[in-house]
């Protein structure tokens, strides 16, 4: 049970760090920490075989989102 509390606390900490950081590209690693914490919390909350699929879908989806944001940001910087 302590694992779940720890993961939730890390999610809150990472969300606060994302909001206070000013630089767009340096926000993304903090977002990544939050995604790890939430994906871990999904499996810890509900012990069911399908929850691996939910965690993997959430994680891959949010990584794709971060990838798209970083690529667009890089393209916008070049112009």
């Amino acid at each position, binding site marked *: 049970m302590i694992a779940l509390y720890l993961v939730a606390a890390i999610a809150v900490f990472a969300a606060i760090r994302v909001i206070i950081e000013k630089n767009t590209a340096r926000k993304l690693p903090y977002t990544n920490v939050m995604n790890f914490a939430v994906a871990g919390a*999904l499996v810890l*909350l509900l012990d069911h075989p399908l929850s691996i*699929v939910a965690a993997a*879908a959430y994680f891959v*989806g*949010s990584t794709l989102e971060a990838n*798209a944001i970083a690529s667009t940001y890089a393209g*916008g910087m070049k112009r």
Partner: protein
Amino acid sequence: MIVALEVAFGLVALLGAVSTALIRDSYGKVISLGILVAGIVPFIVDRGYLDVAIAVSLIAPVATIFVLMVVRREQA
């Protein structure tokens, strides 16, 4: 769900919503929308609606990519 966890994930969702409203930079707004979704998904999973959670976590990034097209056109 345990009350402390509800408070924690609810705080994440609220922080995402408030920062989406307040941040002026357009990339920052998109990242804050990601925080909002991250706060919502644990509540869906806790009720047992795993299929809904899978659908939400696949639809939200696609929506973000469409928003990003608008952001890129504004910045160029």
